[in-house]
């Protein structure tokens, strides 16, 4: 590749190829409780990534020999749809699917109070409908919301994001184009932000110690923002009360305004009557 053809991943203004700042993630929308038949569910869109996660359980662990009499076991299944990548993906679970299922399941195990449900299993299915780098972070973030939606007791929500390096600069949430950069480093990180406990950390490439420290700080800031979106998604389901309260408030206001008007008109009428009565009594007196 000649110098002229070389891509500029971060320009002088600090903006990336898609116009984002270096510490800015792609737009995220999270919706909890989208599936009626599952105990808990979540649909997440993270840039081009689209993930649907469902949770079943806790229920009896089967086959019985896998059951643990001291705690529940977590079965995380990460699967990419055949149409989720530009070329058709073989729907058979490959090495990557199995690996991501394992690491994500272990990450969520840290946040769940497993000892409350001995001899049971909690099943989580993450289906990637569309992907463009960062799908494991998206799946883990959505899975955490789905678990909370299922009412499973947890220490904290697990939030995940990828940080990396392109053109020697630390950036948050790499997309596919950035991930394919010649010197790119990609590091998905998942954290329980209350205790700052890291539950997943993988790295493709190498960081210097200074770069790692910078990347960690960028990731923590990103995670805080994404966690707020997770919380909002969970609370969104129970907004009914506030809406109703607003409605009732407006109704009562209208009523009070109406009643005030009525009382005013009544008062006026009363005054008129009084005047009329006075005039009448005067006229009577004059007649007499």
């Amino acid at each position, binding site marked *: 590749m000649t110098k002229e053809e070389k891509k500029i991943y971060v320009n002088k203004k600090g903006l990336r190829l898609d116009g984002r700042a270096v510490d800015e993630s792609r737009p995220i929308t999270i919706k909890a409780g989208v599936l009626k038949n599952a105990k808990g569910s979540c649909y997440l869109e993270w840039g081009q990534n689209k993930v649907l996660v469902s949770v079943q359980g806790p229920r009896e662990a089967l086959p019985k020999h896998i059951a643990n009499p001291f705690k529940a076991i977590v079965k995380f299944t990460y699967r990419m749809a055949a149409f989720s990548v530009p070329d058709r993906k073989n729907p058979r679970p490959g090495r990557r699917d199995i690996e991501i299922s394992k690491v994500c399941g272990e990450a969520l195990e840290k946040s769940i109070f497993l000892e409350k449900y001995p001899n049971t299993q909690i099943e989580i299915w993450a289906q990637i409908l569309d992907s463009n780098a960062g799908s494991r972070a998206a799946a883990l973030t959505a899975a955490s919301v789905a678990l909370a939606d299922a009412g499973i007791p947890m220490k904290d929500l697990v939030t995940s994001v990828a940080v990396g390096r392109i053109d020697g600069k630390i950036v948050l949430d790499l997309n596919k184009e950035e991930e394919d950069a010649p010197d790119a480093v990609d590091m998905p990180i998942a954290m329980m932000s*209350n205790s700052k406990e890291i539950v997943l950390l993988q790295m493709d490439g190498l960081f210097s110690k200074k770069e790692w420290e910078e990347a960690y700080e960028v990731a923590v800031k990103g995670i805080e923002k994404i966690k707020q979106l997770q919380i909002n998604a969970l609370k969104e389901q129970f907004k009914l009360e506030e809406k109703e309260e607003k409605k009732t408030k407006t109704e009562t206001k209208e009523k009070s305004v109406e009643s005030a008007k009525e009382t005013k008109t009544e008062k006026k009428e009363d005054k008129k009557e009084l005047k009329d009565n006075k005039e009448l009594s005067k006229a009577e007196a004059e007649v007499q």
Partner: protein
Amino acid sequence: MKKIVVPGELVTEQRKRTGDHVFVHNGQIYSDTVGITNNESTTASVVPLKGIYIPKQGDILIGLVVNELFSGFLVDVNSFSLSYMSKDRIREPLKRGSIVSVRVSKTNELNEADVSDARVFYGGEVFAVSPVKVPRIIGKNGSMLDILRKGTNCNFIVGRNGRIWAKGGNVPLLIKAIKKIEAEAHTSNLTNKMAEFLSKQRNII
């Protein structure tokens, strides 16, 4: 003041007695589930809005007999595993497929329950709601149950496991009302709202 909390959200910084669905981390009390907490209460606790049924001794449940053993029955009570019910002191004939109301006589550390005091239901309908919404369907001292009984003229029994058996009266209206309670369980002044709803529905009919 009541507020909705999510797992890992701070319930209170004050030192309080801890109730259900909270845990202490670094001297502060956090919620472990999605639910409602009340700041004014002397106990820090969260009433869950989502969740599953865990058997407790003394609970009345609606179950389905799924199998017969030599000395007892296996009953599906909407929990992690099937519950065992001894044939001892069962007066009525039971078979697979019978709908029964049972009482939890014993639970163990694996949340398995033994049940007893079976009463068989003949006829009627069984439908399910979320087990965490059952206290709202019952109401304070059964106030909601009274309203539902008066409003629908139904004979019904609410199981703690989220199953409801109903017979007679206006069962479709009862189901409609209970689904409404389930959807609005987190709102306040629900008993009055339901009384209004049922009176409206009766007028329409």
